């Protein structure tokens, strides 16, 4: 064994010297025109749902049954390491054919032209119908970068208000529809059960350190993160100040509980009833059912209250095809397959996430009344939210900007800096990023 390894190393190093640094992959392009019996092709599909994936064995088998010349090599991944692994693979000429992308990764990858042009591949159609018919306007926009599609939304994430309906009833609180009402509701809802002068139950969750939870307030106050040309920060406006102060107000008046990394997952706070109201996405429906089954029937969902206009961030998962994928045409066939109604419903039933296509969102399976939500049908509320949700700006520097904003929110929530100065500082940093 010693010798063979040595020889391989020698050969390998010679080969490496001869061929290094080019980074290009010559995969088998393997496309054929329909009609003649196509050559067998294997496509590699990678996702990050872990073991609870909608790309199940049955789905794959059914797909291969319908397209007998295509074999699917499915590789499971997990969300945490997916990004790094994907980056390494794609930049090393070892691209998968289909990969799930978190929508917040799109700006960075798309601006480096990592994705295949789906407008071209699809001819504007998905499973025979125009793409613009299959998705909401917001989704269509979120899938577009530089005037072409870079991804097809697979599941979506937008925030709505989860609240303890049983407590609302007991305390005679009306479902809030605007910021003032939300503040009032939070104050009425929170309780001090151990008599130490501070509320400790049914508080409003103030998630403190990211743009997902704070930017919605910015949008709801009529503000935006960047200006239209994406050349400068725009969140240090009146709207931004209002939004920051509003977010903090819950902590100041004791009706809110700060939630950061040290507190662990919010589901724990929900379970022990420290949290009675929170803003989050559709996947929390599944989390509630799994993590707090004893609270069945007590929770309901409502559209997020707003100040100037309804707003939320729009995120989720998209299916993308890397630009150097070996078999883009077959990959596109697979993407379309996963966007059919049946598979989209699987996104909810298998992965507990919300499917992104209009057809799925309107389907009877998802618009049912649910016992956990006291007889309410929660999905339609999220579906409506998708219509008013905005995706993060698609600029190359989104990741550092995201970090700057998250840090800014965190420092204000922790009381380390005053809202106005935090905003000004952060805006200056963002402008620097955009300029550089």
């Amino acid at each position, binding site marked *: 064994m010693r010798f063979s390894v040595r020889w391989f*190393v020698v050969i390998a190093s010679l080969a*490496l010297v001869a061929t290094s640094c080019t980074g290009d992959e010559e995969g088998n392009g393997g496309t054929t025109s329909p009609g003649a019996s196509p050559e067998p092709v294997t496509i590699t599909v990678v996702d990050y749902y872990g073991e609870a994936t909608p790309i199940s064995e049955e789905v794959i088998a059914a797909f291969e049954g319908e397209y007998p010349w295509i074999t699917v090599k499915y590789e499971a991944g997990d969300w945490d390491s997916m990004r790094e692994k994907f980056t390494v693979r794609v930049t090393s000429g070892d691209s998968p054919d289909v990969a799930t992308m978190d929508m917040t990764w799109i700006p*960075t990858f798309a601006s480096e032209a990592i994705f295949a042009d789906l407008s071209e591949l699809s001819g504007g159609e998905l499973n025979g119908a125009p793409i613009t018919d299959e998705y909401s306007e917001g989704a269509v926009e979120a899938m577009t970068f530089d005037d072409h599609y870079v991804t097809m939304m697979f599941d979506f994430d937008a925030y709505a208000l989860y609240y303890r309906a049983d407590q609302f009833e007991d305390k005679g609180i009306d479902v809030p529809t605007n910021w003032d009402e939300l503040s009032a509701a939070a104050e009425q809802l929170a309780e001090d059960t151990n008599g130490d002068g501070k509320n400790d139950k049914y508080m409003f969750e103030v998630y403190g350190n990211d743009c997902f939870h704070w930017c919605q307030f910015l949008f709801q106050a009529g503000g935006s993160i960047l200006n239209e040309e994406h050349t400068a920060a725009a969140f240090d406006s009146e709207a931004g100040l209002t939004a920051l102060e509003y977010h903090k107000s819950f902590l100041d008046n004791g009706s809110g509980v700060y939630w950061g990394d*040290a*507190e662990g997952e919010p589901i724990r706070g929900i379970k022990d009833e420290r949290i009675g109201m929170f803003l989050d996405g559709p996947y929390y429906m599944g989390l509630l059912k799994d993590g707090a089954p004893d609270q069945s029937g007590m929770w309901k969902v409502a559209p997020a209250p707003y100040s100037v206009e309804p707003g939320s961030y729009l995120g989720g998962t998209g299916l993308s095809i890397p630009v150097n994928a070996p078999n883009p045409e077959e990959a596109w066939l697979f993407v379309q397959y996963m966007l059919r109604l049946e598979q989209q419903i699987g996104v909810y039933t298998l992965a507990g996430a919300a499917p992104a296509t209009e057809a799925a969102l309107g389907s009877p399976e998802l618009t049912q009344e649910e016992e956990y939500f006291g007889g309410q049908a929660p999905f339609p509320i999220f579906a409506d939210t998708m219509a008013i949700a905005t995706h993060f700006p698609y600029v190359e520097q989104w990741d550092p900007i995201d970090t700057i904003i998250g*840090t800014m929110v965190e420092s204000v929530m922790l009381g380390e800096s005053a809202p106005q100065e935090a905003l000004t500082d952060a805006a200056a940093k963002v402008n620097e990023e955009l300029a550089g």
Partner: protein
Amino acid sequence: MRASAIPTKTVRRRPLKGRWRRYVAGYVLIAPALLAAGLFLFVPIVLSGYWSLTEYSGLGEPEWVGLTNYIELFGNDLFLKALLNTFLFVLIGMGIGPVLGFLSALLLNSTVRFRGFFRAAYFVPVMTSLVVVATIWKILLQQQGVINQALSFFGLPGHAWLSDPSTALPAVVATSIWQGFGFETVVFLAALQGIPRELYDAARVDGASYWQQVRHITLPAMRPTIMFVYIIGIIGSFQVYDQVFVMTEGGPINSTRTLVFDLVDRFQQLELGEASAVAYVLLAILAFLSYVQIFVFERERG
């Protein structure tokens, strides 16, 4: 070459042949290691050095930019913060860790029962991957976690250790020390066992106290070991990543952002040139520090 009692005729032939044989043996013995290192370490490192002078996203071709990456790094807030945090981490960690290791080794070297059990106990954290250790401590340090509960048992206030910018870095350092000083303990213990008993006996006869013995016999005898521990320890500490990734992701407010974390972050953003530049800055720092350490140790020995 030692002077030998062998007659002149043989001396003339032997040294040449012997030396030549030793050269060949030397090269043959290091060949596999060098080949492997060459392919799997040097090639990537040199390539990264090249990339650090370019702007490169990983796709397409690298674009030569000279020293721009380096210059920009030193004007970049995040990088500077990472530099500061890493220095703090190393200072605290290498200040405390080896000292604890040394003290524990002294403890374990004395005649106590159940030595095997204690040794194993110290070493168990070292046996475990950093990711596992960090995961466990992350839960323990949570607001409602075991640490705070233990503190309240003693009447002390709990704290949001990982959420507070002023305590997050110390918390991560503490976790690292906890995990790592067992290694130093074992290495020091092995070295301690090698110090001849006679030296201590003689000192005791002369009336030296325990700590005097430590100062004048133990420490000097362990100099090479101490140097080894510090060099390896500093090189390792500077590259801290796993704990940060698991426990705090660089936060809160970048208070735990370390150099390697900064590097990986830049990779994720497909800034391979910048990331490679961070790596080379790290290399320069470590090379300098190692040189200084070796210089200091060698000089003191002479």
